[in-house]
């Protein structure tokens, strides 16, 4: 188990290096420097600016010094907001994004697992079709459509909930969490239905039934643990998706989080900001993939043996 984690961590290092290098050279190959778009600036000012951001050095030297900085956790200064570093901006945006992602994940897990388990208990009946059709609806209703519609209905017409903001008015976190969580709830519902169906047809469940255990006990004590493995394996990619989804949701609800900063940085062509945040996102996503793989391993003894044997 530990060995597996260690191996995976080792494998993550070249992946991260590739991400950092690819992003770095991509950003530096962009046509037009970050300062060339501005109004006529005297050449000496541009030179001074370029010296300040090390842009006057050859590319490989910039690359080496950037790698060194990243290793020490320093993602460099922002081009756009002079005097602020990428680290500061990430620190400013992370709390809101993390909180939003957590609530959304909670919404997704609660709705998704209960719908999937309900459907798997009575396959091919109304109890199956209804939640699964709703899941299909959730998949085909992207967040940039669901969000505005929820705002229109619950914010503007019914006036039950605030239409935007984050932590200013009570209840303003509900709509963003639902908007971001719904799509994932739908995927989780399909995954947990599939997983539960497979587990419920196994011998040990039949034994449990034969022993006369009650249905809830069978589901909660015996079936869930095995049936939810696909869901656990999905958590890593889901987390990556939540970060991407937060671009839209944070824009719609005007939440001061990482996603909104990233989109703004994209519009401002704030290259160091984009570079730094991409490196940050990639690290996070690789870490979460690792965590969810290990969780799935811990839940499934068969896989555990295989992984132990391989490494």
């Amino acid at each position, binding site marked *: 188990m530990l060995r597996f984690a260690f191996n995976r961590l080792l494998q993550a290092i070249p992946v991260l290096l590739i991400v950092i290098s690819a992003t770095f050279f991509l950003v530096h190959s962009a046509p037009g420097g970050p300062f060339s778009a501005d109004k006529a600036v005297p050449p000496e000012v541009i030179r001074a600016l370029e010296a300040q951001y090390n842009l006057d050095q050859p590319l490989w030297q910039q690359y080496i010094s950037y790698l060194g900085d990243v290793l020490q956790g320093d993602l460099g200064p922002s081009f756009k907001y002079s005097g602020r570093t990428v680290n500061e901006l990430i620190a400013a945006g992370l709390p809101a994004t993390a909180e939003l992602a957590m609530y959304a994940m909670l919404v997704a897990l609660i709705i998704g697992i209960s719908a999937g388990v309900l459907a798997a208990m009575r396959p091919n009946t109304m109890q199956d079709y209804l939640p699964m059709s709703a899941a299909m609806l959730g998949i085909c209703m992207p967040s940039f459509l669901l969000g505005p519609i929820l705002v229109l209905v619950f914010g503007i017409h019914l006036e039950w909930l605030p239409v935007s903001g984050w932590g200013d008015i009570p209840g303003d976190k509900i709509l963003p969490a639902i908007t971001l969580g719904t799509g994932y709830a739908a995927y989780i519902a399909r995954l947990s239905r599939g997983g539960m169906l497979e587990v419920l047809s196994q011998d040990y469940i039949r034994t449990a039934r034969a022993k006369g255990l009650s249905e809830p006990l069978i589901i909660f004590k015996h079936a869930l643990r095995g049936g939810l493995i696909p869901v656990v394996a999905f958590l890593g990619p889901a987390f990556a998706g939540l970060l991407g989804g937060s671009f839209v949701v944070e824009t719609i609800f005007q939440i001061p989080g990482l996603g909104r900063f990233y989109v703004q940085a994209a519009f401002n062509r704030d290259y160091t900001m984009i570079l730094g945040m*991409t490196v940050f996102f990639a690290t996070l996503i690789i870490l979460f993939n690792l965590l969810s793989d290990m969780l799935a391993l811990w839940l499934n003894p068969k896989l555990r043996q295989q992984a132990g044997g391989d490494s």
Partner: protein
Amino acid sequence: MDDLQVMEEQGSSLWRDAWIKLSKNYLALFGLGVIVLLCIVSLLTPWIAPYGYEEQDLMLGATAPSLQHWLGTDIFGRDMLTRIMYGGRVSLMVGFIATAVALVIGVLWGAIAGFVGGRVDAVMMRIVDIMYALPFMIFIVLLMVVFGRNILLLFLAIGAVEWLTMARIVRSQVMSLRKQEFVEAAYSLGLSQWTIIRRHIIPNTLGPVIVYTTLTIPSVMLLEAFLSFLGLGIQPPESSWGLLINYGVETMEEYPWLLIFPGVTLSLTLFALNFLGDGLRDALDPRTSKD
């Protein structure tokens, strides 16, 4: 769907079976109908659209649906139905072309890896594994920023992201085909590897490939809409459903239909494609059926 028809005439029973199964699945048939209708409408848009694409009526402004304008007009008095039809052309085009890019890369990659096997296979699949771990949404945004918002790049960027699963599916299919007798027979006849891949391996992987292609189109369209919504995808004067939804959101308080109609169109299309994909999966690829 041309492929299906052609194969059927050759009397291949797999395709006939699949068609019979598919024709009993009403949701999938409904999906197929919607897609065919959308394609026809998109092709004919310049001739059947009720108004011109750029035709404005500033005096009229935004109006609710009426007999003259079935889906209403936007704030410049442009006919919504016309705009949705033209936007659909772009959305569908991105869906089909980017999927085609993904299809070509994925099938070739998977077929070569699965067929050559050994160390080449290990390296190629390792690359796929590594790319799976990358945050692609973020990369596409980055690409659009660095190289400007250009529709050709959009096709390539989305296609370059979506080929990974296709490569995996084709590889596993090819691995199992490679050991079968008719492939050995082809070898003993002295055919080159490339000919065997082209003539024998690729046609036999068509089933899963068709299924997965149908399921890739909606996710590609979603990606395009997502980018256009953020203002990083299709640029005006071009239009797409994602962009229309973006405009709709800005004015949804006063004119909700400007959000609702493009939204419903996009959702309905995604629905139809997903139903068709699920139906094709049940019909063509029984091993990976839903439950």
